[in-house]
């Protein structure tokens, strides 16, 4: 393997020189920690804010692997016991899967100096919360009035401009549950959603893959969709005509958590990393443009653009129990495929 690697390296340097690109490999500091991170804006935010802060405070290099939550779980399951990263970043659905499959190391919140700054219960033996997500309706204010309720989405003028996504994502799942509730369903009964969607299916502007939604919205294919405040903030910051609306029944809140991977190579550095992430200054910087991550540290004064004045108000937001949702999700996805397929 060795001669081969040397050959490869030599080749790379040659290619780098030839293509004129900067060959940048991190210089090794005292230590490092490898964290999974959501691709795109989270990746940018952590690279811009958290990595320098961690370097300053503890002389630890932050390495990041851009992976969606579902991909992290799949990778950890496939490479059982030998994760390629030390820290997971997850939404509630994949978090429950990770707990059930024993993918996390037991977490000791007392090792985080900043744990006391989090609202009660946000750091436990599974991991720590690092951001909140607030889900509601995103719409184009130049083309539509503000929708007021989830049921509005299935009425004109919204329905013919509506872009739907299915149960693949956390925000999609909780939004559909809320729509179902608005039509008489519950957290575990999304039947009314299917009944209602059948009636309006021909009018709906489209059902998209979650990854394509920002592009479709930007080009005017859809003008209203369910989404979170962070996406709205990011897109608006990039000149997209989009506003966030909280439905009458309340915006939905859920937490993004970080967990120690079982078999993590650098657990001690991981605690320092997580403590840095939830520190006041870092959380405040992550909340500001262009990142728009909803903070979880009580000391952070909330930005006026957020749909709440304090973190405690979030307890009034709609919350969901993912240990009940997860077992139903497979059948919902199957049902969704069958109902909407042409």
């Amino acid at each position, binding site marked *: 393997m060795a001669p081969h690697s040397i050959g490869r390296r030599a*080749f790379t340097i040659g290619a780098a020189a030839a293509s004129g690109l900067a060959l*940048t490999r991190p210089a090794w500091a005292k230590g490092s920690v490898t964290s999974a991170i959501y691709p795109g*804006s989270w990746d*940018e935010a952590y690279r811009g804010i958290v990595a320098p802060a961690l370097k300053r405070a503890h002389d630890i290099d932050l390495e990041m692997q851009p992976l969606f939550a579902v991909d992290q779980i799949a990778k950890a399951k496939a490479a059982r016991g*030998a994760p390629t990263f030390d820290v997971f970043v997850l939404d509630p659905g994949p978090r429950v899967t990770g707990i059930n499959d024993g993918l996390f190391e037991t977490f000791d919140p007392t090792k985080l100096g900043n744990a006391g700054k989090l609202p009660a219960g946000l750091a436990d033996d599974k991991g720590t919360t690092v951001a909140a997500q607030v889900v509601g309706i995103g719409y184009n204010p130049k083309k539509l009035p503000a929708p007021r309720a989830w049921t509005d989405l299935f009425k004109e003028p919204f329905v013919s401009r509506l872009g739907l996504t299915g149960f693949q994502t956390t925000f999609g799942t909780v939004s559909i549950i809320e729509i179902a509730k608005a039509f008489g369903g519950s957290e575990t009964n999304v039947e009314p959603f299917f009944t209602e969607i059948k009636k309006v299916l021909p009018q709906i502007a489209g059902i998209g893959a979650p990854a394509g939604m920002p592009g479709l919205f930007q080009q005017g294919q859809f003008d209203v969709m369910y989404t979170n405040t962070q996406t709205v903030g990011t897109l608006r910051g990039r000149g997209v005509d989009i506003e966030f609306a909280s439905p009458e029944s309340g915006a939905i809140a859920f937490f993004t958590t970080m967990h120690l991977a079982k078999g993590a190579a650098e657990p001690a550095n991981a605690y320092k990393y997580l403590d840095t992430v939830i520190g006041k200054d870092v959380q405040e910087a992550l909340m500001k443009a262009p990142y728009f991550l909803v903070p979880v540290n009580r000391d952070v004064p909330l930005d006026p653009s957020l749909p709440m004045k304090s973190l405690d108000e979030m307890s009034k937001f709609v919350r969901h129990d993912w240990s009940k949702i997860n077992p139903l999700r497979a059948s919902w996805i199957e049902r969704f495929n069958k109902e909407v397929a042409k």
Partner: protein
Amino acid sequence: MSRRHSPSDMSYTLVIGVLASLALVILVGPVLVVLLTSFTDNRSLKFPPTGLSLQWYAELFDATRSRQIHRAALNSLEVAAWSTGLATLFGTMAALALARSEARWARMLDTLFMSPMILPGLAFGLAALMYFTFLGFRPSLNLIMVGHAIVIVPLVLRTTSASLSQLDAALLESSASLGASWFYTLRRVTLPIIAPGIFAGAFLAFMASIDNVPVSLFLSGPRSDMLPIRLWGMMESTLDVRVAAVSGVFITTVICLMLLMERVVGLTKRIRD
């Protein structure tokens, strides 16, 4: 050249002309959209652009602001070069044996060697990760390279086999009967004839590796960030225009390479003549 303009020949010219023009429009249209968008002065991917600027290219070439993209691009180029090299070598050798063989085992192998292209990348990526973990390997650039080589080998095999089946058996026999060794015949007769096929396959393979998302996703470890995965994140969450600018760079690079090859090849031709 044509002696007459029969209605039939005119209909040929018309039909072929219209369809070929349609092909050109379909091929070029989306690329034009991407190129135009890459020169936008807008803050995100939007078509049509409100104004033109080079800001996104400047940002793409900025060593600090686009460091991660550069790193990922280097990884992707490295992996593509090695996996294409391996796939071309092994694929061409196999094609030499399989393309002209009527044996049942050869036909079966030929079909089998196509399967990595058909097995969805996601399923292969996940299963390969399980397999390599089982063998005790950690995800790394080397693993991605091996994974890519397997996935792109069908491209080389198909195009090379197609070229080989054109080879006139009589030509090979006459070369052999004139006393040429197998290797000599390969070098002087076979390879020159199938070179366009090998080259086409290698190019398809290289670009398929550069653009592969699922295999890279599962076989990547720390510090083995790959270009399309990074672009995917940028496009998905922030509609970053650099995603389009990358295509502009690729297109420019290929134009330069083609012009360069033209000069080199043209030069060697002149020397030889």
